[in-house]
């Protein structure tokens, strides 16, 4: 027994040790893999966004500045370094300042009424309605219509000859408006298209913010004897302030780059006979793909970028000041 024991025990023993060694090694290896897995995976998962944003977002923007310092055209490609010449040229162009004015005019006409109307619609949607979802879906319908299609439809409604809006005006005994030649009228028409598409969308954003306002604030206001209108202006609107800022910022970033609706407001797409409604983005397109001058187009793009950054920063500072007053998290 003892002998056999002594003879027989070693083999399993060594066997066991060997296998244990192996499993220890395997364990160590898989632990190592798993450690790297934990360490590296997060970076791997977020890399697509960063790589792609670097290639298609950040790099083109930075490169825009580079192109704007050269004489550069669509066909010949990079020319010689010209410093700030493109900027000097562009800033001396009446069309540039005209585009700046048009862009801001359309932007104001399409954001101020839009925010006011969106809050009003949200307040009504916030009532205890029957068929809630139906109404909410109803205001969102325009959102799925492409801006180009919106542009074509409203182009017809705003037609100078026999367009529906002018027919209604003359029917009421007023003079028809020259939507396609008068500059303020054309801005109003284009702003109307933007408002058509986005008001309902923003109303839903405001509606969500309204539903997040704690009930007891209203209860307190009621006990203090505030009527419904008074409550709306003294409770709802102040509580919506952060949301208003948020909507205004997004409207600013998008609105200052407006192109689609204005592009299809006439056939030539240059913003009218006297560039009455040519926006900055349209001007970039005209310089770059109409005149094939990439250097100048880039200069305008970079200037517009700076304008947007400045306005967004101003908005941000205002937001910070307002955010300290609480409201939405």
């Amino acid at each position: 027994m003892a002998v056999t024991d002594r003879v027989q025990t070693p083999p399993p023993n060594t066997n066991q040790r060997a296998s244990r060694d192996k499993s220890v090694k395997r364990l160590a290896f898989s632990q190592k893999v798993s450690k790297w897995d934990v360490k590296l995976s997060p970076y791997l998962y977020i890399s697509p966004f960063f790589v792609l944003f670097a290639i298609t977002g950040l790099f083109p923007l930075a490169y825009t500045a580079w192109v704007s310092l050269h004489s550069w055209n669509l066909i010949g490609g990079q020319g010689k370094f010209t410093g700030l010449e493109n900027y000097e040229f562009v800033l001396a162009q009446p069309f540039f300042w005209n585009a700046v004015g048009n862009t801001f005019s359309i932007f104001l006409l399409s954001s101020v009424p839009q925010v006011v109307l969106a809050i009003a619609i949200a307040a009504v949607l916030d009532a205890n309605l029957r068929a809630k979802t139906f109404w909410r879906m109803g205001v969102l319908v325009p959102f799925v219509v492409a801006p180009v299609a919106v542009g074509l439809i409203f182009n017809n409604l705003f037609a100078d000859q026999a367009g529906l809006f002018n027919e209604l005006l003359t029917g009421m005994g007023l003079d028809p408006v020259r939507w396609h030649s008068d500059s303020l009228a054309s801005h109003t028409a284009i702003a109307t298209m933007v408002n058509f598409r986005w008001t309902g969308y923003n109303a839903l954003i405001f509606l969500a913010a309204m539903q997040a306002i704690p009930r007891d604030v209203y209860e307190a206001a009621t006990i203090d004897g505030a009527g419904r209108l008074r409550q709306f202006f003294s409770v709802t609107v102040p509580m919506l302030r952060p949301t208003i800022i948020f909507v205004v910022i997004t409207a600013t970033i998008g609105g200052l780059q407006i192109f689609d609706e204005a592009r299809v407001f006439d056939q030539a797409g240059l913003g009218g006979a006297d560039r009455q409604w040519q926006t900055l983005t349209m001007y970039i397109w005209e310089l770059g793909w109409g005149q094939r001058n990439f250097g100048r187009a880039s200069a305008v793009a970079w200037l517009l970028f700076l304008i947007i950054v400045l306005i967004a920063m101003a908005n941000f500072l205002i937001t910070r000041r307002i955010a300290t007053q609480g409201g939405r998290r």
Partner: protein
Amino acid sequence: MSSIPMIEQTAGKGAARAAQRGLGSRRRGAPGGTMRRPGFLTYGFLGAVILGSVFPLWWSFLVGSHDSSVISKGVPLVPGGNFFANAASVLDTIPFWKALGNSIIVSTVTAVSVVLFSTLAGFAFAKLRFRGSKGLLVFVIATMAVPTQLGVVPLFIVMAKLGWTGSLWAVIIPGVVTAFGVFWMTQYLRDALPDELIEAVRIDGASMIQAFWHVGLPAARPAAAMLALFTFVATWTNFFWPFIVLDPSNPTLPVALQLLQAAHFVDYSIVLAGAVLSTIPLLLLFAVAGRQLVSGIMQGAVKG
């Protein structure tokens, strides 16, 4: 004025709350807490808003269903029988079916890839600990405000160098993942996916990617559906970049519409028939998924 304060004065706050809860929904009433049904004015105003939302589409169908000779005398208030003839003119003028196919391809591929990449990144930001995650997330949020559209000139130069101008890749690649998507998914997964669940599958020996696949993706499904919907609509309606980089022979729908307008500017009945045709696919999508679109906007607003 309102009924709830009345209950409050007579029976106390608790009763007032109960009266509200009695309505069964967790919805608040109108400001001031009135739970009476809104009156005629409210519905009238809403009706006007809906009319304003739907009327331009109805109008374009009206114009598109008549002959242009009729249109020039003013538009009748009933649809005419000319819609198919006008639609045929649309198909003759622009490569409509090709544009439709292109729009479907571009929007679908973009939506799928945005959801996949955004969910991956959101999973990492929301649930994994790694150095610099806070700063990187702030960076992502900051990039949402970057007007990338202004980089079109160099982007075009790059695409020309790659020989991609005119191909759908030029439109798809820049939109393959978005900052908004990453942020959206991070916000959602933070609450929707319990840490214990990930730990459990990790202890069972799953690798990170398996954990993402078996736990992360299923948890993200509702938000992923909404993100896909949004991306699809946004890509479908996008015009500026496709307009620059695509050829007239191989357009997406909005680009094709612009071509149609260039060809038939004053022939409104044909142009608007085209506008109707190009909108139908998204209206169908809206009929199916409009509800999700609404709740997606409202959820994003509260979190945003």
